[in-house]
């Protein structure tokens, strides 16, 4: 597998500067700065507890950092709000699959189209006519995603009943349904076997290549990280300790020490 052609314009879609986040006494992030260029696949790695998920949560607007700024598509703010992030074109998946358990896979992915559906309340009441036409139009788009992710046979199944690997795929589908500019993936390969990982990698690369989606992902599988990503940022105990191409980062002794421990 080769990495995507990645950073086309070297222009930063997202950049975080000096972000610090603490919960009570626990410092999740300290003065972290990096950027994500348009069209690239950026990996965020680091040992457990490094603050990777917290970083994504800050980008998404779920957490409010105590310090620092976030610049997305040219707009700078001190904190994102979830609705603004979504509207601005940021979508995300979660470590513990945050699907809507009461709904089918199809409905979950259709939920991802919510921002793009505009037919008002009164049309929804009667459904016939504009509301139904809009449903069908978006259903078409969602079916494309379902085909892309190769999950047509489970579309009507309530997601609570799906095996973990398929749930993760549905969640990816929901994120893709938002047609995001920036896709944040939190350990998309967790708990998958080799085949599933290869499938997932394929989807990620295709999303990046064909849809032009910029991707930031957290991942533990080093093979995946090295193969997929254009650039890598490494966190440890809430601080950034390395930032560069996969090869550069692999050779960085700080990174090696973080993962393997320093011999005493």
């Amino acid at each position, binding site marked *: 597998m080769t990495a995507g052609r990645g950073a086309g314009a070297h222009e930063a879609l997202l950049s975080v500067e000096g972000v610090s986040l603490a*919960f009570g006494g626990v410092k999740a992030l300290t003065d972290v700065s990096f950027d994500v260029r348009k069209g690239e696949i950026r990996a965020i790695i680091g040992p457990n507890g490094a603050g990777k998920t917290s970083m994504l*949560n800050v980008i998404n607007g779920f957490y409010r950092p105590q310090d620092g700024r976030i610049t997305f598509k040219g707009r700078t703010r001190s904190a994102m709000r979830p609705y603004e992030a979504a509207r601005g074109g940021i979508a995300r998946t*979660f470590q*513990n699959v945050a699907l809507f358990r009461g709904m089918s896979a199809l409905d979950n992915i259709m939920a991802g189209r919510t921002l793009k559906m505009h037919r008002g309340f009164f049309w929804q009441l009667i459904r016939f006519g504009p509301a139904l036409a809009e449903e069908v139009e978006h259903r078409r788009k969602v079916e494309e995603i379902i085909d892309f992710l190769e999950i047509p046979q489970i579309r009507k199944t309530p997601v609570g009943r799906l095996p973990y690997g398929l749930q993760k795929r549905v969640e990816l589908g929901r994120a893709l349904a938002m047609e995001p500019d920036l896709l944040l993936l939190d350990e998309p390969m967790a708990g998958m076997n080799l085949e599933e990982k290869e499938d997932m990698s394929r989807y990620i690369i295709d999303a990046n290549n064909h849809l032009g989606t910029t991707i930031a992902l957290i991942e533990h599988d080093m093979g995946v990280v090295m193969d997929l990503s254009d650039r890598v940022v490494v966190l440890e105990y809430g601080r950034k300790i390395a930032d560069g191409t996969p090869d550069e980062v692999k050779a960085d002794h700080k990174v090696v020490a973080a993962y393997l421990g320093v011999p005493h």
Partner: protein
Amino acid sequence: MDLLYKIFLDPFVQMGAAPDLLVQTLWEGLVAGVLYALIALGYVLIYKASGVFNFAQGIMVVFAALTLVGVAARLRQWGVAPGDVAAYGALVLTALVMLGLAWGVERVMLRPLVNQPEIILFMATFGLTYFLIGFGELLFGGEPKVMITDDLHLPRGALEFKMLGGFVSLQKIDVAAAVIASIMVAALALFFQKTRIGRALRAVADSHKAALSVGISLEQIWVTVWFAAGIVALATGIMWGARSDVSFALQTLALKALPVLILGGFTSIPGAIVGGVIIGVGEKLGEFYWGPLLGSGIESWLAYVIALVFLLFRPQGLFGEKIIERI
């Protein structure tokens, strides 16, 4: 302008004008608050230890009181000598009945619903409430009963104080209630914090699965705690019943404990008392001094509105734990 005066100034003027009335009202509020707190205590016990919000706590109070009165009457009927022996005998027997109830609830309701989401268990206690209402009415009939206050040697009469230019009268039974409630609260708080069983109870409240995996016997714990709640219910029933007759109307009054729990938190034993007193006093003051403005009967909703306003500022109550959602 006149309206503003009426709302913000006049009631305080009235308070100042007759301070003995104010003290009387505060006392009444305190007493009501203590009684609310006793009911709230039952909720807290069960919630703290099993994660279940026991909607049936109110009916348990009524049921316990009815059983006590009914059994005492039976014992006297069968000639078990003087009234107070019958009363204390009935007390013991009622405690046993509450133990039986706890065992029954655990067996039939809690065990099959292990691990279900909280809302399911909550709704199951609705079912329990209705069942006990029907059962209680079947066994004891629906008419109000008189509590066997004298036989239990609970004090009667009032203490009168001349103060602040007038009279303040404290019912002795109310004082007794306050004392008993405080003792119960202290004992239970200590129990939870210091003993092994208390720790186990807290573990179960946190996570059934995890508690099971460390070898805690959920069944024993639940029976214990529902029995404890049953005893609290019995004490509450005696105190409530001593002030006014025992009837099924008490059951709806028990809903008032909910605002108490909101203020005091669902898992805090001292919180139940603090919340109870705040609600009780707030309600009485509101009803007495502001009530005439709005018409009578505002105590039917005032407690809830107080709780609501409170929730808007502090969604987890005074003592509750702040819920941090992780994703």
